């Protein structure tokens, strides 16, 4: 439980830092909770409307920060004191499985938003789809809402799901920055283990080496990258990612176990131009 709180804290802090630099000032009473996020879906049950928000205004394969609000259908008010959990589920042709996801937490005590993240390690397709069940308790009464959600494939490679050399299945997902810059970026990554089809806890104590490269420009790299590590168990991983120009970057990765062995990924050399574990994006 504590781990999840830590993840939440990190994610929330990172989100706040990157999205609303002014929200920490306590003397500003009016904070636009919906700044930088847009609503992409509503789920309804008999009593409530559940609004789903993200910075993209939608979901995509990979790591997604999702905010929700619960509106009382009769009063039209947003519920501020609910406790919320969620359960994403992939319905494949032959089976169902879950994915890594966080607890859902209130963003601010007085606000209406609840927030967490879900890592969709695969996209939907014509016959296979994700749905999301939201369970919440208000003043001791349990409610639930459930709907199919739209998780298209991402154009960038934002998530890797693989079996490491230790035989364990891992999921490595790119969380931030949403908008990379020509600068030293703080890169935030989630690393999860697949315990079983329904449980994907955070993998603790690993390290993720990053080597950004531009394949269209002689596969040149960038200096002063720092491997992503955790500051405490249960948290997302934070590292430094230097990008020296705009364009298409491939972020080559190596996942290192707590014991120091390489679980996945290769070092880039003249002959090895890409790692089997990577993210990519264009900006």
């Amino acid at each position: 439980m504590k781990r999840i709180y830590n993840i939440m804290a990190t994610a929330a802090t990172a989100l706040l830092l990157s999205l609303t630099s002014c929200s920490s000032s306590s003397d500003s009473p009016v904070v636009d909770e919906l700044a930088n996020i847009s609503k992409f879906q509503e789920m309804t049950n008999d009593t409530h409307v559940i609004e789903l928000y993200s910075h993209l205004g939608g979901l995509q394969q990979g790591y997604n920060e999702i905010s929700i609000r619960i509106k009382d259908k009769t009063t039209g008010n947003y519920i501020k004191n609910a406790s919320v959990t969620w359960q994403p589920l992939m319905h494949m042709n032959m089976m169902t499985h879950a994915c890594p996801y966080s607890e859902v937490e209130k963003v601010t005590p007085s606000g209406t938003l609840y927030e967490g993240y879900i890592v969709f390690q695969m996209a939907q397709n014509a016959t296979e789809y994700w749905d999301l069940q939201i369970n919440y308790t208000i003043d001791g009464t349990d409610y639930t809402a459930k709907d199919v959600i739209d998780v298209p494939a991402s154009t960038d490679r934002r998530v890797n799901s693989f079996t490491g050399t230790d035989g364990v299945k891992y999921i490595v997902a790119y969380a931030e920055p949403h908008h990379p810059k020509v600068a030293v970026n703080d890169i935030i990554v989630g690393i999860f283990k697949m315990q079983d089809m329904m449980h994907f806890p955070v993998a603790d104590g690993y390290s993720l080496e990053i080597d950004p490269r531009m394949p269209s420009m002689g596969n040149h790299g960038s200096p002063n990258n720092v491997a992503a590590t955790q500051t405490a168990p249960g948290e997302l991983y934070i590292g430094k990612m230097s990008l020296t120009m705009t364009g298409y970057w491939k972020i080559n990765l190596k996942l290192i176990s707590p014991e120091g062995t390489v679980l996945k990924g290769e070092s880039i050399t003249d002959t090895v131009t890409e790692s089997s574990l990577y993210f990519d994006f264009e900006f």
Partner: protein
Amino acid sequence: MKIHFIIAALISGLYSQAQEVSNDSLKPKELKEIIVIGKKVPLAEKQSKTLSSIDEYLQKSIKIGMIKRGAYAWEPIINSMPTERTLITIDGMRIFGACTDKMDPITSYVEVSNLSEATICSGQEGACYGSTIGGSVDLKRNQNKFDQQKWDISLNSGFESNNRQKIIGTSVTYADSLLYFDTDFMYRNAGDYKAGNDKEVLFSQFKKINFSGTSGLKLAANQLLEASVIYDKATNVGYPALPMDVSLAEALITSLKWQYVPKNSMVKDWETKVYFNTITHKMDDTHRPNVPIHMDMPGWSKTFGYYSKAKAVLGQHHFLANLNAFYNQSKAEMTMYPQNPNEAPMFMYTWPDVRTFYQGIFIEDDYVFNCHSGIKFTAAAGQHSNKVASEFGLESLQIFYPEMKAQKNRFLKSLAINYHLDKPRFSYGFGLGYGERAPSVSEGYGFYLYNSFDNFDQVGNPNLKNEKSLEGNAFIELKNDKASLKLSSSYFHINDYIIAKPNATLVPMTLGANGVKVYTAVSYAVIWNAGLTTTYKLTPELKWNAQLLYTYGKDAQDVNLPFISPLSYTAGLAFRKNSYSAELTLQGNATQTRYSPSYGEDRTPDYAVINLGVGYNFKWNPCSVGLRVGVENALDTYYTTYSDWNNIPRMGRNFYADIIFKL
């Protein structure tokens, strides 16, 4: 083509004088060298190749060399030091090139026909308009005088056979007692040149126009207001030694000057000028074959500035004070287009919008002991600051320097003292100097600037210390009515010498580059040169002259510095009688043995070339006509010099013909 022009004569006058201003008994002796390019009127009579480039004129000075990246826009080096360590001004105005690859030295934005002279100062004597280490060149434009009402119109035209360069220009000047104006227009268009043995050097073409206008208004008997403008536009300029050419190099240089010459005052001359110039430079690789990745590399440089300079005489003291400042914006970008057209272009700032502000003062006191000796003190101090104005650019550089701040302030000082004794048959002088300079924009803030000479990407370093130079110089001259012999030498001990060194941990950006160099400072470097100049009058009409130059340059680790000339020599015979002139010159270098492999240099073999030129002035009513024809590299030698970028061969045999009609 116009071969009949060339055959027509075999006389000459490759004749630019390294002339020192004659010293009358009350004036201080000028130690600086002045290359007289030619006043409007004497231009036709004095010079042989009247329409040669300004670079060709400048490199006749023993202090000046030229780094050549093509047929056009050579980079002057003074005392073996390139642009960062020198100060090149046009009428005292600071101008900064807009090209990260130094394809546009300031000298490329003026035409020889605009200029009357170039004042070359070695070392700290050149600190009048700002800080320098190696020295300075001030390019002085023609200045008209208030006079009886008079129009002067002339038409210049020239042709060079080797690169089929066509030159056409006009000059219109007007003066009366209250007003004058001076306009000058020049157009050049050249194809590729051919090195010795008829080997064509691809991408060495160029085309340029240049307009210069100056207008003066007499405000009072001793006050003058002068406005001036230079517009220069070069297009389709090939740089055979570089991987890219230039599609546009455009400069607008403007100034307004107020000059006051008090009568019966201690202050003899007070001149104040405000100026503005803007340069746009666009590199271009669209004509090159096999470009692995197409890129746009535009650069901009804008400079505002002023100076206020006064001369005063108090007893035996001759004072000069110059208060000057400039504000420069240098910005350059690189956008690379991947071969996959669906991929986003790659963009970076190679100069991150750097704003440089300098405010300084220069003071000189020339104390004349008596009619033949004196001592000169100069001192300068200035406040220098750089600020990275682009957030994008700052964050880019913070990849390398996480602690870097946007602004950096520096204080620059200079001090020099020179003694000289000048007797009719014998003179000597010696001096000491100390000077500092701030790193250039590229050295401090360059971001992945590709240097095709050593094949490294170079990254600036905002934490560099000021470069500090301690210099000594001396000369001795013997002369009589027929002959003169002058030996001069300069020595520079440069502390915190700024140079780029490889950093093995960095991966180059440029395709095929060897690595990345980061600007750093070696503890010190030493540059020493010694020159011998002799003249001998064989007959009143025939004069022999020769120059010999030895240069030495090493850093603290005994590594050779780049662009250090091997032993070089020039010898010439000049003939002048009535309207005829002729000159024969031999110019050569010994083998470059002390080259610097770590900066991309290799051994350059020795060479010698012969030039021959003749001139004839005649009256062809209503015009006076000056005709100059000649041949350069007469033996069509295939050669390259120590300062040819990537060993590009120099021009082979070239016949030229210049003609000036003057109304």
